[in-house]
């Protein structure tokens, strides 16, 4: 996979992940063109597009478009499956996910994606394992932050 984009029906980018090194300018250009092309398509149309020399696979979930670009030989359905898996993961993690969850916790959305895909390849096909890894990393973070909150509490009692 070359990159993954999440954008809203209004064309606002919600998440982007690039697995090929490109300059910011190129990224912006590709994003703009692709968002336009995908949004111009009608809802009943198929999820696949040939764009430049890439295969674009996209799917709309509620108000969000999930859009992946793969090379010619990659399988379209696998890509579609990857998108769906990711949505399922988000859903499990946030509990019936909505666009706002991704906007406000965009770093979490990235962490989940990173546990699921690495360098553009699916690294873990088991949903359970992905969620487990994320939960444990979060736990680690909470433990670290625990000190911080404890101190905060101490300060407030002192005052």
């Amino acid at each position, binding site marked *: 996979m070359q990159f993954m984009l999440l954008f809203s029906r209004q064309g606002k980018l919600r998440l982007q992940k690039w697995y090929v090194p490109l300059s910011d300018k190129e990224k912006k250009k590709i994003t703009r063109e692709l968002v336009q092309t995908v949004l111009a398509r009608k809802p009943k149309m198929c999820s696949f597009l040939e764009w430049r020399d890439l295969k674009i696979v996209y799917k709309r979930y509620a108000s969000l478009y999930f859009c992946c670009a793969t090379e010619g030989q990659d399988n379209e359905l696998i890509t579609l499956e990857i998108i769906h898996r990711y949505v399922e993961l988000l859903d499990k993690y946030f509990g019936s996910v909505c666009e706002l969850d991704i906007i406000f916790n965009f770093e979490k959305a990235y962490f989940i994606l*990173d546990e699921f895909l690495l360098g553009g390849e699916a690294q873990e096909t088991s949903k359970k394992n992905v969620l487990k890894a994320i939960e444990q990393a979060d736990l680690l973070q909470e433990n670290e932050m625990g000190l911080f909150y404890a101190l905060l509490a101490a*300060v407030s009692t002192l005052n």
Partner: protein
Amino acid sequence: MALKIVKGSIDRMFDKNLQDLVRGIRNHKEDEAKYISTCIDEIKQELKQDNIAVKANAVCKLTYLQMLGYDVSWAAFNIVEVMSSSKFTYKRIGYLAASQCFHESTDVIMLTTNQIRKDLSSPNQYDTGVALTGLSCFVTPDLARDLANDIMTLMSHTKPYIRKKAVLIMYKVFLKYPESLRPAFPRLKEKLEDPDPGVQSAAVNVICELARRNPKNYLSLAPLFFKLMTSSTNNWVLIKIIKLFGALTPLEPRLGKKLIEPLTNLIHRIYLFFSQILHHLSAITLVCFSWLIAFLFFITVLISLSSGMPNHSASIQLCVQKLRILIEDSDQNLKYLGLLAMSKILKTHPKSVQSHKDLILQCLDDKDESIRLRALDLLYGMVSKKNLMEIVKKLMLHVDKAEGTTYRDELLTKIIDICSQSNYQYITNFEWYISILVELTRLEGTRHGHLIASQMLDVAIRVKAIRVFAVAQMATLLDNAHMLTGNTQRNGICEVLYAAAWICGEFSEHLENPMETLEAMLRPKVATLPGHIQAVYVQNAAKLFATVLKSQEGNTDSTTAQEASQLMIDRLPLFVQSANLEVQERASCILQLVKYIQKLQQKDVEVSEEVCALFAGELNPVAPKAQKKVPIPDGLDLDAWINEPPSESESEDEQPKAIFSKEEPKHSRPRHTEVDEKELARRREARKQEQANNPFYIKASPSSQKVYQETPGVEHIPVVQIDLSVPLKVPGLPMSDQYVKLEEERRQKERAEKKKKDKKKRKEKRSGRGKKHDSGPESEEDITPAHMVDIVTEEMPENALPSDDDERDPADPHKALDIDLDKPLADSEKLPVRSHRAAEVLKSPAEDEEGENVSSLEPKKKSSKEKREKKKDKDKDRKVKMLFDRRLLRLISVMLTFIFLFYSFDRKAYDIQGNLQDGSQVVVSVIFENKCDSFLKSMEFNVLDSLNSKLQRPEGSGPHDSLTIPFQLPPGVSNEARFVFTVQSIIMPQKLKGTLTFIVKNEESSTHEKLDFKLHFTCTSYLITTPCYSDAFAKLLESGDLKSSSIRLEGVNMPFHHLLARICFHHHFSVVERIDSCASMYSRSIQGHHVCLLVKITVSVDAKCDEPTLLGNVLDEIKQTFSQC
């Protein structure tokens, strides 16, 4: 301390966090840009604080802003700071920001190497995981080289979580640093049998990706994958493996046979499952998708495997039928995938797909462009002589209906592709094809005018029988040219006029009324066409003129001929004034010629023969690659100057790039013509030669078309636009539909005749076997072309070399990964262990050589110690340590770290600078590490040049000026700079003295400091590991040019192969041959000296070199290496 943290935390309470920022942006919809610019100012303030929590929060916000499209590259260094936090919470944010914002040209990436290495070896698996994830996004060739070994170690980590990530990221590393593939491959192979399914699937993933690009190197893995395929139950893994086999089977047909059985079993298993859901296909949910993928995949693979095995045609029929169900489904995705799978089957079993033509044609009506394009692709492979006309007719309807120009252009190219494929194999009636092309000219605003034009030219030249018809069509087209040129600026279709004019001119003998066409070609409106078309018009008007004269020959009434001359003389001046040089030149040339002819005509002289001779000669098509394939005759050096090289001033008045740039010099076209026999003969010759040399005349490949598009046109001339929204029917042109009907009738007639014949035969023979012919549809062979069509094959030069120029794109990163993996690993290939520059270490002397140069540096060390004493008095806080490359120098001083990384011959620098002194450049990389707590800036590097070695300074600076180092060093940061030295003689080791000056800046003050150092250039560093074959080596030794010398290495007791490895490693030699107790080794200096060693197990070294001094020094250095171990 604790209080400080608390204070920081309270401060943090008042900062905006990410949620606040997002909310803020949503609340400031009107003045978003303004709001964000204030936010960025705040973030800049936050980044200046010491508190890492504040910084991390700021970086997190920046990552969000980056996604919105704001430039955050200025904060790259802060991101590195957050990455290096010891807390996982912040590290996570830092790496995320880095993976989003960094790319290959981000310069701070090189500062991250050590931090990433530290994180990779962290005891916390999530630290390692986060580093691996980040690295996968921004790995550069340098990072790949430096970290390859660390990642390879992680592939055997105890936790599957890490192993899995490490295996996957290796693929990225291979792409950036192909040298790592061979050393890492055995371990990667091992991971195919990892107990953890995740790791296993990752390894399968990586190997499949590698093998897809270079399958032949992975054939030996087939048995292993075969085992995996039969045992694995994970669909994701299965799909990858089958994909891999798809790439391998073309190389090893036996594999295909072996695969059939397990694959059929698999398909059966999946099909059973699949058939259960098949009857309610529209209800397929995403849950079933992976099954569906597998199904589609396996059938296509089975099909490609079983091609050539007749007994499988039944199963393929079944597959195609199932695909039909998919395509007929209302779900667009299934439709698309069905078409896709169908196109894969088409390649091997065209017959079984062709019966579904109706369905494919239906798909052309689909609203979805993706599906239409797929269907078009399929059609290309489905045409036959029988159905071509029908399919094209259908496509022509779509051309009329099509909305977007892109899709219409796509249709147009597809029509032409379909018709012209395999040398017009399927066209039975070229009149029909010409009329299709003419109909296509009705398309407004298409980009593909030149494509149609080239087809017209190609057909008219190569199909002789069609010329009469083609000329008539083209004449009509020329007559109606005004309809095509409605909007010259944007209308690419006027290109066809180019072809029309040329065809009418060249084959003018077939014209019914050349005078009319001549008139059409010389209309004033023509002057609005692009220059290159006008030029062709003028040239071909002359050809027509010749034809008119010829037709009037022997006619006592010479009015028509005189009218023609008068017409030319009246109209040509318009073109003589053309802004286009090409047009102008041709027009004035021809004008003069016609004026002369007119004079002769008035004297009643017969001129037509001479005029016709100007354009005599048949043109033959030339194959596009013909020129390339002309073998170069023996003894011809194409690079040698024929004349003396021209002086520079001559090149200035070079002609602008024009279409006829390849033309012979213009002397063959005299301006003031005197038509005498000699002259004409000469011109005829010149013309023939020109035509022979000019690929433009005949060849119609797109590339040549492009050339003439570049010529300056007449776009700036205002043109009255004619609005033609109604599709045009060019009057007087026969429509292709008529031809379809005619063709049908013709075929029917033929069939009827055939039947009659058959009947006759049957009657004669009294056998009832001929029944087949009665009802069954006619087979391909039955259709005979409408008229005998002689398709002229393209000419190739004699004894042309047959070769397929099937070159791969040199920029393809996978090309570098085409590496033989079965060869045993050589010592020099081992991955570098713990060093700053891996590629370098491959060649550089060993670590335990540390002491090598100690003696030479001893005095320096003392002086720096003294210095340190002084410094301590001045500033006790400042504590700086220096590190050195063991090989080159060891220097401990107060301020900075120098690591001399490598001296190597930099061919690139040599090339760029065009330095003719071969091999006289040496690149020195220096890492500066700031170990103190202050900021270092304005660093300047200077070396006292010796006669032999000089530091290369920018042009214009004096021999003693210092070089400014283009960066500053914050505390704890290191960076690398490279310096180029010019070295005259490399036979002696060298030491150069140098100084580094810099400003130390802290909160209170800034001071100027100076640091002395010495650079030691050893002779070894001038050697480059160069492989040498044993026969070449033997020849070298026999040549007798080499002086010999020998040494004994005292007190060495290590295994012989260690000894050899050590010499290879430290002194850049390669082993040529090893026979039992002795080995021959070879190396080459950057100036081309050969150094040959014969190392015996008795630890004696016999050496030969064409430069005794160099040899002596190298041997001394070898001796030193071994005296220290």
